[in-house]
């Protein structure tokens, strides 16, 4: 069937559903705009507010947590300071060289107390001067790539050997060095090398008033203490 309508377009009856397309388009546009505006309003006035409040709460929580952590840090600092102090003291004690016993052994050697006996009879020894000081060079502290760290002191003494027989002054000197090396003073106090190493000769005089030969003997010995590794504080 062919439908022929000769009426002008404005007088023709519409065959559509009756909804004005302009209204339809307007309604769709309004819905789209309202949806976008609503989403924006939700984010702008709801979610941002919630996020700002949450951030404010987190800031307060962080301040509180930081205050608590600062207490721990303060204690940690006290512990670190103590460890430093402990390390310093341990280092100082490790480097400390004790002289009282050494001098006591030295006095006993010269006075021939205890087990000390000159290997030869007929002479006495006097110490007329004694100087103990850190050894020169590196302030008495020696370090090496392989060698352990050590502290070295110079033990400089001037002796007078007073003997009965002039022709045996050499024997007295040799006996003196032998006795020194056998003594506890030499063996147990960290002296290095041999006692006669610094011996560069002597000057002897015969004292007619006392009828004795006096030999002046200036010597400089080295006393070395090897340093052990300092230990830290165990946590």
């Amino acid at each position, binding site marked *: 069937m062919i439908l022929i309508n000769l009426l002008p377009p404005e007088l023709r009856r519409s065959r559509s559903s009756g909804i004005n397309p302009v209204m339809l388009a307007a309604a769709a546009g309004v819905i789209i705009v309202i949806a*976008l505006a609503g989403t924006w309003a939700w984010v702008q006035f709801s*979610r941002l507010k919630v*996020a700002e409040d949450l951030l404010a709460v987190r800031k307060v929580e962080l301040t509180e947590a930081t205050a608590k952590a600062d207490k721990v840090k303060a204690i940690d600092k006290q512990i670190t300071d*103590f460890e430093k102090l402990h390390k310093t003291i341990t280092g*100082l004690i490790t480097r400390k060289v004790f002289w009282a016993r050494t*001098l006591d052994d030295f006095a006993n050697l010269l006075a021939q107390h205890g087990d000390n006996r000159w290997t030869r009879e007929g002479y006495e020894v006097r110490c007329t001067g004694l100087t103990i000081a850190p050894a020169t060079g590196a302030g008495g502290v020696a370090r090496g790539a392989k060698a352990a760290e050590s502290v070295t002191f110079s033990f400089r003494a001037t002796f007078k050997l007073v003997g009965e027989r002039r022709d045996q002054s050499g024997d007295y000197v040799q006996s003196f060095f032998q006795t020194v090396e056998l003594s506890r003073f030499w063996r147990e106090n960290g002296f290095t090398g041999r006692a006669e190493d610094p011996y560069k000769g002597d000057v002897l005089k015969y004292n007619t008033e006392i009828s004795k030969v006096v030999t002046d003997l200036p010597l400089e010995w080295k006393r070395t203490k090897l340093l052990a590794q300092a230990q830290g504080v165990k946590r």
Partner: protein
Amino acid sequence: MNLQTLSNLPRKTWLIVIGSATLVLSGVFLYLLSGALFRLGADPAVPAFLRRAGDSNSLYAQIEAKNKAIAEQNAIAAKLPDRVILLASMKADIDAARKRLPTEAQKAEVRQLIEDLARQVGSSAGALQVKSVSIREAAAAGGRSATGDYKSVEYQTSVSADLDGIIQFINLIERNERFMTVEGIQLTSGGVVANKETLKPEAKPHTAQLRIVTYMDTSGTAAGARGVK
């Protein structure tokens, strides 16, 4: 232009107007929404297709950074009980260690200690006499004479006594609770003189120059804290 004129506009024109208006308004709101989402950041309450990561200044990025920082601080704060117990267990050691090294304010105290120790020396040939004490301070840092926050202070002490007395004195110095070390000794023999009455030889007291070295805490905070004790 009145309403009649508008109503007489062709439908096509209307559709163009409505479409344009929708487009413009949608663009405006999309722009605003995009900005708000960017500032908001990765909010889990926002649907995933809308969510934007934002930059480090976005609110949720800041919240995430704060959460991380709070977790770190809480992890440190969680150690508090252990640290308190550890510090309490170390307190005796700390006090003992602090007694060993004087502060700068205690220089005279060490000087007095040296004299006190000299008085403790008992000797058959007479008491040990302190003739003089001069104090020499090392530089605050560097060299053997200083150790970190500690600088060496040297008490150059001249004493007079027999050898036993000097050895006793050195022993008291070395064994004292306060850290002191004898870094140098210069002993001069006192010689022998004849007693005018008995005509017997008598030994005169020796003279010893001792370099007694201790170390002082130069760290200001520790000195202040310890100065109160």
